[in-house]
């Protein structure tokens, strides 16, 4: 399903980033980092039209030959980025949205942990589990 899932702090440093083929980790880091350009562009575009403020899903950030990068931004400007293999054509927009929602819920749980210091990298087993689920699950 997803090949890389990243959570990026408001200040644009990674809180969590995991990718499936580990040998390509670096490439995904670059990809996710670059995608922040589009995230910022989209956020500022949303900011202009106050109407759809509530829409957190940013949609396809940019496609590359091999991957599709989707974005999502919480109200506290924490960004989620999901990278999907382009050859995986079965994934529809709705599925991506639901993945983001799941991710957001799990992220909220992490933030609710009183022992978690907001701004620290996420080191939660539960969150890890959710992410693993999204990466392995087929279809």
């Amino acid at each position, binding site marked *: 399903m997803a090949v890389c899932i990243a959570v990026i*702090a408001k200040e644009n*440093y990674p809180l969590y980033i995991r990718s499936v083929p580990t040998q390509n980790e670096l490439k995904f*880091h*670059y990809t996710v*980092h*670059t995608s922040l*350009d589009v995230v910022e562009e989209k956020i500022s575009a949303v900011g202009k039209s106050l109407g759809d403020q509530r829409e957190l899903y940013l949609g396809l950030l940019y496609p590359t030959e091999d991957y599709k990068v989707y974005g999502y931004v919480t109200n506290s400007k924490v960004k989620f980025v999901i990278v999907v293999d*382009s050859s995986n054509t079965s994934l529809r927009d709705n599925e991506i949205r639901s993945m983001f929602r799941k991710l957001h819920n799990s992220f909220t749980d992490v933030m609710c942990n009183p022992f978690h210091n907001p701004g620290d990298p996420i080191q939660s087993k539960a969150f890890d589990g959710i992410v693993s689920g999204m990466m392995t699950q087929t279809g």
Partner: protein
Amino acid sequence: MECQEEKPIIYTMENKPIVTCAGDQGLFMSLYTSLAQQLPREPMEWRRTYGRAPKMIHLEANFVQFKEELLPKEGNKALLTFPFLHIYWTDCCDTEVYKTSVKEDMLRWQNSLRLHGSADWVIIVVETNDTKKKNKTNILPRASIVDKIRSDFCNKQNDRCVVLSDPLKDSTRSQESWNSLLLKLRTLLLMSFTKNLGRFEDDMRTLREKRTQPGWSFCEYFMVQEELAFVFEMLQQFEDALVQYDELDALFTQYVLNFGAGDTANWLGSFCAPVRSWNGLLLRRPIDMEKRDGIQRGEASLLDLRSYLFSRQCTLLIFLLRPWEVTQRALELLHNCVQELRLLEVSVLEGSLDCWVFLSCLEVLHRIEGCCDQAQLAANCSHTVGLWAYATDKLKSLGELCGLVSEKGPTSEDLNRTVDLLAGLGDERPETVHSLQSPYKKLKEALSSVEAFERHYLELSHAAMEMYRAIGRLRSARLVGKSLAEFYMRKGDPERAESFLQEALKSYVSEGWSLPVTHTRKQIAECQKLLSRTEDYLQTSALLAGDLNLTSEERKHFCQEILTFAAKAGEDSHKVTLSMAVFAQLTRLQFHPATASVHSGADLRVVLTLRCLMPLSVRIQQVAASIHFDVDRGGTRGRSKGAQRPTNPGTVEFTHSSSSAGPPSSSSVGPSLELDEIHDRSPSDNTLNSAGVVCKNTHLLLRRHDSNTPPDTPNCVSPPAVAMKEGAQMLKVQDVTLEPGNNNVIFTAPSEQPGTYTLRQLCATVGQVQFVLPHIYPSVQYEVYSQEPQLTVEPLSEPLLAGLPQKVKFTLLTGHYTVKKGVALQLSNTDTMPILPSTSCTAHIRDPAAELVGESVLSIQSSEKVTSISLPPTPPYHTLEFQLEVLCIIPSGSDRPANERLTNGEVRHRPRSYSHPDTPMTAIDQRMSIDCPWSIYSTLLALTFYIPFKTKHSLLSAGNRKYIQVCVQNVSDVNFMLAEVKLTEKQHPSLELLSLNTKTQQPLCSKHSVFCLWEVRWKDDLPSCLQCVFSATFSPLNQDISAFKPFHYQFNLERVTTLYSVRAEILPPAGEQHCRSGFLCGLEVSVTRLSEPAEGELAEETDTDGLKTTKLMYEVADSSSNWAVCGKSSGIVSMPLRANATHKVQIEVMPLFAGHLPFPKIKVLKYLPHTAAVAIQPDPDSCVENDSLSLLDKTLDDQADTASIRSRGSVHSVGSGDQQQKGVAMPRLEAFSPGQVFNNSHARQVLVLPATDDHIVEVNAT
């Protein structure tokens, strides 16, 4: 349309719906121009089937001569050539002619139409005035040709025959008839469209539904649906046309996806053929007939189909003025095609797709540039930049594939590959043959030589980067820059590469992306090594050696790089200075001793904890910390200051941002806030005016944040240049090996000179390399002090009690002074506080850390004047402690000692006793004067003692007999035993004081009192003045008799003798047994003189009998409101100066209550008439009495006043004080001493019965 300036084969634009014309061609030709002009002039509403929104369209038509071949044959699906309307033109006005020729012609026409099932026809009859005129003979218009035609052909469809009147005339009638004709034509055309297109669409849908059948071919279907698209395009319904293509696109995509899912369609086989041509998209023609033919023949490859589809979509989108959608779709298409080829497992020559993508990208960009002006392009970079970047990417990979990037140039294998790739491009298309910069030419050129490739690649890269920058996508721009850097590196140009890498690194560092940071830094290290920028390279190596993202081998490699350099024999003495932060972190600093404050010359150790970040153990030649030295003024601040520090100064923890792997938040936050409370108190009454919080390190927090990163982050791109400042003093340790992780380095700090030492910089030297920590923050200081000897004396227990032996502690801080053997303290002795000799007095010697280092017995020698204490030898900065017992003698009352002189000749100050505010005890300050050997001045010390007792005495009388009572109150917190209570009289030995105390010893507990009583007996005469001394011994409870200490109290008693006795009687009213409340009764006061006049006693007057008398004033004063005095309450009596002389006074009083009432009080005072008063100096007490007396005088003078009832002697002082004249003429009153008047009826009571008719019960609640 923008694209009209180009002149490709405009196929579609010339297509118009075909309308055939039959009948009179000459007539039609004469009307053609105006018809063709006027038909599209007004829009018509086209109502659509299937709920599609109605549209307004301008209709145009292509009028052609009717031929039977034009009519579509059965099964022909072509729509473009489909005649939508058939017109028969005639201007026949002659019935005869009509009947003979025209009708037949029409019938033939109708028949051939009917044969082909075409029902869209109209007959136009043109009427002119001329023809009408000719026809004048003809009868009714009803029977005109038109009617005939209508009746012949248009049964029920009258609207199929239209009359056009005077078409060539400019008249309203002509115009109206034109309008109605045009309206009719348009309506009919639309009806035909609706009908025919509807039928076509139905057929098409049916065909589509058959797609699961085995023989179905996508290409065939494609052609059919495209026909529909063409028609819509023809009708200028580009939106609808685009929909047709999008549907085809989606359908094809779905088939490919299904193929991927294992559902193969036969017809897909042709698309799976190996790709032989990759000449890119062609967007310059509205219709690429070449490709279309290929599709029609079923020979097109996937790329052909996609290219054709996209070119059509592109054309329509441009018609729709949506060029930016083209770019977006193009990028999707290119990605998609690559994926689809992969999915279909089409074999492709390596690099051919790259060629195709590259060419396509450029083609799209050219197309867009062709229809937009420069400003529009610039404003919409965001839409095109993706294509630019994609093209750049592809060119780069092509270059790599063809060996154009390497330093050596392409190999023969590379060249072969290039030839193969170029072959697949085919020939250049005719449209671009003559243009200088076609994508085809670009690619060919780029692949032809290394130089050309470089030129094109750089051009593209820079274009992409600039666009990214322009739209603010800096990260993307940097990524392109990084890829450019990689290119430069391969070309062997590290200098250019580095600048791009540094820029990229800066962004990764600032945003805390550790993996890209590590990767980029590694690349930079490579650059720097190639550029032999040793210092930078070593710095980067150090960073990498400490980078946890790298494998330990890589880290060791970089560490070894540094060590190798460091070990090189330095022919030049230049040392490389690097920032310490990347090498090791200072995590903790500890002082031993922890106070960080030592006396000069003492041993002070500083322990640094360094966390070494290197993967190997590193041998350091020298670790040095430079010190800044400040001389304190005076240099004797000593320990007190060290204790005032807010935090434990012994250990300083340095906080660091964790490592390069961590988020930058901690480092970007910078130093943490250091806050202090402040309280602003008013200086007068210490109330709080304001409270607040101040930040102590604003200078660090409120720094202006420059664009570059703060220098103290370990992530910094290029560590700041650090300069090692040579301080005068250094902490140095040689030859330390730092293991990975925490290491402790122990320094011995210099402490010769008193002052403050601040640690400034830290420097570790490894051969040629120095690691420098430019600032140690928070700043770390230690103090070296020099101290004068100090002697303090303090009580061992609080409070010190006077009269008992008490221990006091002597503490000597030697400071810089060394106590040698034989040195002694000289204490001046005083009588009031002797030092008690004690046998064993031990002195304890402690070192600065308060550890006991020695004990020795003191020798104390007392002479008359001084006590000398020999001190044991003590080293400097040690503490000498010993205890001595002293006794402070309680001063006994009003004893006036003679002046004493101290040993040094000073007049001794009497220890003055005073009452202390904190305790009820009376305090005495006792001073000690000590001569110390280290000073020429005597040390004066004060001890405060407290007297544990308060003593009071009183004289009691019973008639002539006298008693003395002494009350001793214990005001201390200690319980005592009081013994040997004694009272003596000093001057009159004949006087006998008979003790009435039974116990010899009495406990006197804290806060309790003991009363002692003596009766005074005398033989001849009682002296009027007694000087008594009360003495007792006391000791704390439960102590040995020997511990009892004396206590004395002196007091004087004067005017002891009883002069008068006063007796009062209450007499019930006459005839009554008892007094009743509310009834007057008599009060008889008798004053009796008890003693003979003494020598000093003056007689004021002489009686007529020759007796000496003195005047007394009595006053009945009832203080408890029990009695009402009726009449005079006071008066003056003359008493003879003779024993047993009695004077009686009768006063009327009335009891106010029933019960046992105490007698009213009777006061007797000495009355001094004004003549006598002159002699006696009035003392302050009697002056006070005067106030009330003056009024009494008045009442004496004013006899009319006597009737007024004056209750309880309350005095209405009507400004008496003001009226009083301080002068000679005033008579005065003088009180007697307590022993001089004895009141017999003191405390007596009398029974008062209630009034008989008293039915009112008075309740007095107070």
